[in-house]
């Protein structure tokens, strides 16, 4: 089981002084763990970071044993977000969601490409709305395809709720009676627009996707997955009506 593939570093756990166990999301071979010799050495430390895109060569004697990665840098995606607290939280949150939601050894090339393209949007002013849409696309990849095209109850196009049961949009008039049970649906998710500095809408979008993420990720309540996402949600809430 030896291969060469492009990958994104999801997690690095120190092994001894310089080595690490690296959890990599590879393009064609899915999520996989492997040992990286010298991961914390002076040569590799600048590029081997959470979220980095790398070229990995994986070697193992058998599928039951932990293999070894030989890693070459492609792109350090974290460097563009280190100076911005919100972008950094979105970056960490996306990685923790992918890490928590995927099983080892299964091919997830769509998740890989969606995550890689999300990293490129972090440079733009629309990073926050891109993040919220990225969560929706990850949910779709995990089997929960939310449908905001029309009202589930046949109502008008004034869509402002999501049904937690069906994942479909509900119009204002149809949802009036049940609004306590329905989830908020921010406008930018319906008209697929890109918004700047609308922190309340981002907060509501995260609140909505939170419900569905909880239902599909078995270890959602583990602190390592929820902490960056919760802090991002708080970040939006604290900046509500302020410039990001």
């Amino acid at each position, binding site marked *: 089981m030896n291969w060469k593939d492009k990958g994104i570093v999801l997690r690095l756990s120190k092994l001894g002084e310089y080595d690490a166990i690296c959890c990599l999301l590879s393009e064609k071979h899915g999520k996989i763990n492997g040992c990286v010799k010298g991961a914390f050495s002076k040569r590799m430390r600048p590029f081997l970071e959470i979220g980095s895109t790398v070229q990995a060569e994986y070697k193992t004697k058998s599928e039951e044993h932990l293999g070894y990665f030989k890693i070459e840098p492609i792109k350090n995606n974290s460097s563009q977000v*280190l100076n911005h607290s919100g972008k950094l939280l979105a970056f960490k949150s996306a990685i923790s969601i992918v890490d928590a939601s995927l099983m080892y050894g299964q091919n997830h090339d769509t998740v890989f490409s969606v995550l890689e393209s999300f990293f490129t949007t972090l440079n733009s002013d629309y990073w926050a709305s891109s993040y919220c849409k990225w969560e929706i696309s990850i949910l779709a990849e995990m089997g929960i395809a939310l449908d905001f095209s029309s009202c589930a109850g046949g109502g008008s196009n004034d869509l402002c709720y999501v049904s937690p049961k069906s994942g479909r949009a509900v119009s204002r008039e149809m949802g009036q009676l049940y609004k306590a049970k329905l989830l908020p649906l921010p406008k930018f998710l319906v008209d697929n627009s890109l918004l700047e500095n609308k922190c309340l809408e981002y907060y509501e979008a995260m609140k909505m996707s939170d419900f569905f993420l909880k239902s599909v990720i078995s270890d959602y309540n583990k602190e390592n997955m929820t902490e960056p996402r919760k802090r991002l949600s708080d970040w939006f809430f604290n900046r509500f009506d302020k410039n990001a």
Partner: protein
Amino acid sequence: MQEIDNLVAVLSRLPGFGPRSAKRIVLQLLKKQDILMTPLIDALKSAKNNVCDCEVCGNIDTKSPCDICNNLKRDKTTICVVENVADLWAMERTGTYKGKFHILGGVLSPIDGITPKHLNIDGIVSRIEQDGISEIILATNLTVEGQSTAHYLAEVLRPYDVKITRLANGVPVGGELDYLDDGTLAVALQARQIIE
């Protein structure tokens, strides 16, 4: 031999040593007992009995508060927040920083189970409230975890009337652009300065 094996086992647990280098050290210690082993035992005993953590900043010294905290010539209105003692020593090596320090004791890392309650953050807040601090320099590492911790600290300290700064980042002294990694260059470009 049990005694030698024990010594090798203990030494090989130290950073930078493996079983083979530990064996070489043990052999040297046994060969030169008077000039190596006895002074080493004395030095270890002395360090064990006298070195303690500074209750103010978290530095290690033979007394608490440590020499840096007690030094009246240092600027007591500026605190440089670092991850660990090794980082404090690195800052001291520069010889340019004349303020005081605060050691966090790590960085936020949910994967390793390190949350804000595991770090010495309350200590910074109480120092700001009691000591009239005017500037906090966040000198955490330029890694995802280090910068996440810095941003978290900046959020926590924002309500206080204190200037929050952090270290500049970019091209190292003597660095050639052709040899720099993409990440460092990208950060350097973002933090570019006007030439005056």
